[in-house]
């Protein structure tokens, strides 16, 4: 089990967000330390994706504060942006650039040294070494997901936000991703992973939180087998 005494990476307090007049998040508090992995579950429309986009700085909160590495996210400084990695529902890849070009471009955006080499090794890590010259539309859903994950991990973020990372991945790719994340957690990564299938992340997570209708229904350390937790989870989410 990862240690809980790492540095404070992320502090969220009183976070609210509405779309027009429809409230999505109604006051969310959250803190995450380096080395921690938080699994966030909850029914559709609970606000999980919105939460990730707010932490990533792609949206502004209606109210509340987000601090990353002790700095306010509202300033959106370059060091803060460099420390965040986000995997969203979409691949963020350009359809007219090959995988290698896509990742090289991403490496340039983060100002990495030798962007082409960084991109090539990221593809290799994702098991896509021979797909570097392919265009994204030619890839299967699963391979595309691997490329999107490689893009999110490329600049070695300190805080990684994953939205349904195991979607379309086969068993071996899923296992490889879990192993990769375990290594990075041991090296001090902070991870927030949103999922509908707790089984995929149960062993990886150090904490479990359940978001229902825009606020936490639960946030606790992950303990015991998933089977013991599931009835509790269903009770929380079926209300």
């Amino acid at each position, binding site marked *: 089990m990862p240690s809980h005494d790492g540095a404070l990476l992320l502090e969220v307090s009183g976070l609210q967000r509405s779309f027009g007049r429809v409230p999505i998040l109604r006051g969310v508090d959250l803190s995450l330390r380096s080395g921690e992995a938080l699994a966030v579950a909850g029914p559709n429309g609970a606000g999980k994706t919105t939460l990730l986009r707010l932490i990533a700085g792609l949206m502004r909160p209606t109210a509340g504060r987000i601090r990353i590495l002790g700095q306010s996210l509202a300033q*959106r400084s370059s060091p803060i942006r460099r420390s965040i990695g*986000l995997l969203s529902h979409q*691949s963020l890849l*350009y*359809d007219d650039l090959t995988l290698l070009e896509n990742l090289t*471009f991403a490496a340039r*955006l*983060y*100002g990495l040294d030798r962007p082409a080499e960084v991109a090539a090794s990221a593809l290799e890590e994702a098991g896509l070494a021979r797909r570097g010259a392919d265009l994204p539309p030619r890839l299967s859903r699963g391979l595309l997901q691997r490329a999107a994950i490689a893009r999110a991990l490329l600049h070695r973020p300190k805080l990684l936000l994953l939205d349904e990372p195991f979607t379309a991945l086969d068993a071996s790719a899923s296992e490889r991703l879990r192993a990769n994340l375990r290594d990075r957690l041991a090296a001090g990564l902070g991870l927030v992973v949103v999922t509908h299938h707790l089984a995929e992340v149960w062993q990886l997570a150090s904490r479990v939180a359940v978001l229902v209708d825009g606020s936490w229904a639960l946030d606790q350390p992950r303990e015991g087998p998933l089977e013991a937790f599931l009835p509790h989870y269903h009770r929380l989410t079926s209300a």
Partner: protein
Amino acid sequence: MPDSLRLALAIAGKDIRAELRSRTALQSALVFAALVLVVFNFARDPTALSAADLAPSVLWVTFALAAMVALNRAFTVERENAALDGLLLAPVPREALFIGKLLANLAFVGTVELVTLPLFVLFFNVSLGHALPGLLGVTALATVGFVAVGTLFSAMAVRTRFAELMLPVLLLPFMVPPLIAAVQVTSRLLADRPLSEMWGWLRLLALYDIVFVTLCMMTFSAVVDE
């Protein structure tokens, strides 16, 4: 600053590389420009109006319409797979992002203009002579300004309903001053008039470029960042 410039060039390079691979937008814009030229030739009474009299206006209306087609594409590529999110997540100053997109659009619109120009000479029987350097200069001067505004507006338009309609409605009024100036300078260039007759117009174009490139760069963040 060199850092921002490097990022801007990386973004422009990415756009150009992607466009060279698919070539769809560039080809359509070129065909579109050629068609507009042909239509213009037949949309005049040849006994009443000579092709040469109409030439400067034809050239600039064609440039403007082709630029519109080209600019519509600028941010649709960023919408595929939410690629714009990838740009916004990265530590890229928004000014660098704007300049990068502007440079790519200028390369794109500039290419269309460069290919249209010989067609225009051919179809409208214009003898450019030594007006060519001046014509290229005024084309560059006028294009920078309205492409800057177009870059900003196309970032907005892709997020609206009826994006393809929204861009022209917003952009055309902003094209009027550079277009009027460019037509006036072009007709004087073709008539071999002295530079002193164009000076006022050229200053207007330069002022427009300075004001609107700066303003668009400053307000770009308000458009893309939530």
